[in-house]
């Protein structure tokens, strides 16, 4: 049995951590909310500003969960598997990159390096110095069944915990749901990892 010990939902105008409202920003566009969340974290990490919106969403979600998790520092540097998914891949940045060589006349290398969705796992790995398993997959929607199965597989193989997420960003839409899974309930949230519970937590943010 494994447990969801922290979770974070980010949409274009609000952010919830472990089910509680963390920040609400009804008047601003998505990029400003991510920036507000980052500033709120008060960490010294100027690399954040180079990231695209997809990476920023995954990054702040991870940092917000980290603050809740005391256990996370006790894992070895390759114990934590990163498992992420979305529908639109890196389309938000793909559009901008495409624009850079069409309307703007010169392809931008800084945009091109973000035209792959798994880069968000790279940013998380760099920030935390994690050398564990990584998988990014594309799916039409949040597939709780797959996550439950694959997390179990990873925990039975070499990983001791999993940082997971459905992080989808496209133009003005942000749909991010990240969660951390451990083999004991360090959080006392009492959320066993089941597909049903995951699906409910994902839907929770829409209320």
């Amino acid at each position, binding site marked *: 049995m494994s447990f969801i010990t922290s979770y974070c939902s980010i949409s274009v105008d609000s952010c919830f951590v472990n089910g509680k409202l963390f920040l609400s920003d009804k008047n601003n566009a998505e990029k400003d909310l991510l920036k507000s969340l980052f500033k709120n974290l008060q960490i010294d990490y100027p690399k954040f500003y180079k990231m695209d919106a997809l990476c920023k969403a995954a990054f702040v979600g991870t940092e917000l969960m980290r603050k809740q998790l005391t256990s996370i520092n006790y894992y070895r540097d390759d114990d934590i598997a990163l498992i992420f998914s979305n529908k639109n891949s890196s389309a938000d940045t793909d559009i901008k990159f495409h624009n850079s060589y069409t309307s703007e006349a010169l392809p931008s290398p800084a945009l091109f390096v973000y035209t792959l969705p798994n880069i968000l796992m*790279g940013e998380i790995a760099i920030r935390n110095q*994690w050398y564990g398993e990584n998988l990014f997959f594309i799916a039409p929607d949040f597939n709780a069944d797959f996550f439950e199965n694959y997390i179990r597989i990873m925990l039975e193989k070499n990983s001791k915990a999993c940082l997971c997420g459905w992080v989808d960003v496209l133009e003005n839409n942000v749909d991010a749901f990240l969660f951390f899974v451990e083999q004991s309930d360090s959080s006392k949230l009492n959320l066993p990892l089941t597909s049903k519970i995951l699906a409910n937590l994902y839907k929770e943010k829409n209320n």
Partner: protein
Amino acid sequence: MKIFIGAENAISPLGNTAEKNFRSLVDGVSGIRLFNGVGFNKEDVYLSKTDFVVENKFQTLIKNCLDHVQSKIDKQIFLSEKTILIFSTTKGDIDKHLVDAIGISANAIQKEYKLYHHPLTVSNACTSGVQAVNLAADLINANLYDNAIIVGCDVISNFVLYGFQSLFAISDEPCAPFDAKRKGLTLGEACAALVISKNKPVFHDHPVEYVSGSSANDANHISGPSKTGEGLFRSVKKTLASGKIDVREIDFISAHGTATIYNDEMESIAFDRLTMDQIPLNSFKGYLGHTLGAAGVLETVMCMQTLKNNLLIKNLGFDTAGTSKEVNVVKENKNSEVNVILKTASGFGGANASLLIRRI
């Protein structure tokens, strides 16, 4: 549980079957040639590009590839509830669909083959193909499925070409993996597929065995590899441990070998740390270019052909050792008993993955 891997196929400029592709490699034929005026500044660029001129090249490549795979296995497999199709691609048909290219393609595959389950798509930069194979084996080992069809496809696009040009990563000569004069990568396009199953009778011909695989992040830079090859080192170590294979049992390494200064250097350091510097090694990219999301599948298919033919293929483009740690580059085709092969891949986002296959 033994996991079988077979029914492989590949479509590239070198042929429409795995066997034809391998025969071209044996004959030293490269799929790379010069295309006039296709670069961002209208410069000529070396590419490995198929001759296909059809309305929907991307989807046609996949269909042609999978139709052939279908003929090599039990008829019921594609339709079975116990079968999952895993698709590997970095961008899908990106020049055609800037948004949802991958979803469109996955839907088309499901519809075409009346698959029971929606395909799973791995999109993990250039390790996608190897990771798709590993994912398939993991799911079968967990008894979630009995069979998996893995298909990898990426095509030459302005999007990707201009992007790599902006990074100055494209070589102005055919790529030369591990060579002292290497100048960067040559992009390629291909579609490759194979089948993984827990049941040997599924295959009409003799499959080989999938032993183990893993991935690991470099935690270093989003587009440059670790200077110590840390991620690749850790992935290979895990793959060997979970497969209970000793370094000395490996007969051949199919490296990632993109022919950029940094990648090949990183791999040489990782293989040296793994005490694999003497194991015969090549990169298939000298013949096929870098096929991105197809690469891991395509090159695994070439590894399967290597096993079946007991023939090590020379590293095309190599002349003089060009990495700080020497690796044992195959310089001429060599008949050799090959039992165990290690396939590695690395990619943007600090991605690294590896897998082992073995003759049965």
